């Protein structure tokens, strides 16, 4: 790898930088990936959520490591060790609340990121693997969050763990053996807590690995854009730095404001008061409710009165995400140009919110039929509507290029200049 950027501009005049770069080309790498990496010029704020997810991951790992310095993973002391962090450890309350609310924000950010992908067709050729790696990250996040919620050893920690691990008994034959193996005992207990702590610490590092693959896949062909059409030439692109570095920074500022509002003023808004009661294996809480980000899946699980089929429906909803690149038959990526699918997308969003709402309530009364209809619609959307709409829909005419579309909206935008040396 030459020490010079492909523009012919040297990475740096500094001898030290060039000494390092000759041996480990990190500066050339940064130059290429930040300063030169061509990014569509028309990305909207919906494209901020990827970087926000990455930053949230770093925040979670940092706060998690410091919490792990003080946390005691033994069933007799876990709950008290968390309260010790809240009361006696300097700034412990802050680190704990950042970690606790960070989990919620991580899912908010990632869900928006996923829906962005669904709307703009970011999963379509050539980005299928990019999308699937993303679904893997989501699965790892869900496992990590599930195990993390058990660690404070509150009532919801214990009973949520009991209910979800019991799901595996649905598998015919080997089911209950699997559950005993997961528990390391006859019920959720100390062995379970200890292994969940170990795995909760491990999984984020695996997530980092998959994120790196996700970014490599992204950089192969670059970002999608709101129009869903490929970049055709230099007039369609701008360098990532400084345009998207500053835009991402601004987005981070807004994100941190929301984060700070939660952490400092409503830290328990998204949590369950029952988890401030120490786990009691002899007393089931009146309602066992997972954290909000699992509610839609919980609703799907409960919508089918058969244990095994309920489990299959729940896992099936995530497996479905893997298949999206092939379920969508449209030749057009972005819903901007898909007059029918555009509205069907929002029905899906509404459906997911309904599923979440149902998941938060006891499965009785109107919630039963609501949950079943919403689950049916979910599957309908992906397996019937998505393929059929793609075939029969008449998309709007696509612009010839990104630059053309941008110029139509902003006639004052400068005409593309010839490729020159990078901005100083």
């Amino acid at each position, binding site marked *: 790898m030459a020490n010079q950027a492909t523009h012919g501009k040297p990475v740096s005049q500094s001898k030290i930088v060039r000494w390092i770069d000759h041996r480990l080309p990190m500066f050339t790498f940064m130059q290429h990936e930040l300063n030169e990496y061509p990014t569509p*010029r028309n990305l909207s704020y919906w494209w901020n959520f990827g970087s926000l997810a990455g930053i949230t991951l770093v925040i979670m790992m940092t706060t998690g490591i410091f919490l792990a310095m003080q946390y005691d993973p033994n069933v007799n002391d876990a709950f*008290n060790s968390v*309260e010790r962090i*809240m*009361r006696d450890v300097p700034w412990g*309350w*802050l680190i704990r*609340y950042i970690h606790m609310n960070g989990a*919620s924000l991580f899912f*908010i950010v990632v869900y928006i990121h996923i829906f962005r992908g669904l709307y703009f067709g970011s999963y379509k050729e050539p980005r299928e693997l990019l999308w699937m790696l993303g679904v893997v990250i989501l699965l790892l996040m869900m496992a990590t969050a599930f195990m993390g919620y058990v660690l404070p050893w509150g009532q919801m920690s214990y009973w949520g763990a009991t209910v979800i691990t019991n799901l595996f008994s649905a598998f015919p034959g080997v089911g209950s053996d699997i559950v005993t193996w997961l528990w390391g005992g006859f019920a959720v207990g100390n062995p379970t807590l200890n292994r969940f702590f170990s795995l909760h610490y491990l999984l984020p590092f695996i997530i980092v690995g998959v994120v790196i693959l996700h970014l490599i896949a992204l950089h192969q062909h670059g970002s999608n854009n709101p129009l869903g059409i490929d970049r055709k030439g230099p007039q369609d692109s*701008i360098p990532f730095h*400084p*345009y998207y570095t*500053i*835009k991402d*920074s*601004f987005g981070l*500022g*807004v994100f*941190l*404001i929301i984060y*700070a*509002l939660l*952490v*400092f*003023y409503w*830290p*328990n*808004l*998204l*949590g*369950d*008061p*029952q988890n*401030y*009661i120490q786990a009691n294996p002899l007393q089931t809480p*009146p*309602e066992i*409710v997972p954290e*909000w980000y699992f*509610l839609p899946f919980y609703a799907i699980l409960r919508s089918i009165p058969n244990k095994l089929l309920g489990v299959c429906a729940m896992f099936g909803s995530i497996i479905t995400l893997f298949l999206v690149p092939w379920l969508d038959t449209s030749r057009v990526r972005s819903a901007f140009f898909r007059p029918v699918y555009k509205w069907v997308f*929002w029905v899906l*969003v*509404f459906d997911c*919110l309904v599923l*979440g*709402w149902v998941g*938060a*309530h*006891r499965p009785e009364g109107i919630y039963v039929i609501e949950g079943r209809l919403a689950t049916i619609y979910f599957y309908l959307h992906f397996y019937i509507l998505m393929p059929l709409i793609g075939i029969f829909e008449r998309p709007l005419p696509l612009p010839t290029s990104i630059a053309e579309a941008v110029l139509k909206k*902003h*006639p*004052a*935008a*400068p005409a593309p200049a010839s490729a020159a040396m990078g901005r100083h």
Partner: protein
Amino acid sequence: MRRLALAAAAALAFAMPAFAQDESEPPLPHPSWSFDGIFGTFDRAALQRGFEIYDQVCSNCHSMNLLHYRDLSALGYSEDQIKAIAAQKQTTGGPNDQGEMFQRPAQPADAFVAPYPNEQAARAAHNGALPPDLSLIVKARAGGADYVYGILTGFENPPSGFKMNDGMQYDEFFPGHQIAMPQPLTDDSVTFADGTKATLPQEAHDVTTFLAWAAEPKMEERKETGAKVLLFLLVMTGVLYAAKRKIWADIHGHA
């Protein structure tokens, strides 16, 4: 953008845990708390009165295992006062050189002395019912401080036709209306050291304030830090927005 706001509102609506509140249940009382709101603080005088109530009344049945006597310095008590408060209770010490455990006066470093040595003893003393630990009660109940205040002031005669189980009391706000705890507070249950008139609402207000502090002693620090952090973030985000607009000016075609 409007769609985003709608979606966000709907998301937030279901994000909060839904405790299916029966429509026929009375709404919780909502007294004004000094610690409410983004600038809330704990009223030190109320905290001290609340602690007196806990110490004289509640601690006979309810433990507060997560609190230590040294924590009471946040209420404004001096070191000597705390030593005296602690020393009034006997706790287990030892083993001594003979290997025996013994009783000794509590010290500031000790946790609040519990009324019973274990859960079984507590249940035995209360017909099988367990008086819950109060360290986190305000955070551990939906409705928080309003709920605790409601319970304490909600004891009344059951409406006609309501069947009470043995040994239970009727409480307006307890789920199911039947609570195993006999009414703990009435007017003049305690005499406050600062001379405040000890009506039931006053007592309930003060002990709930104390319990709210006990559940989260760092609340004031949290809100104070929050104000500084948010101010900083608002300014910085403003600067970042201005920088973004400037940097993007040439792309968007305006200065």
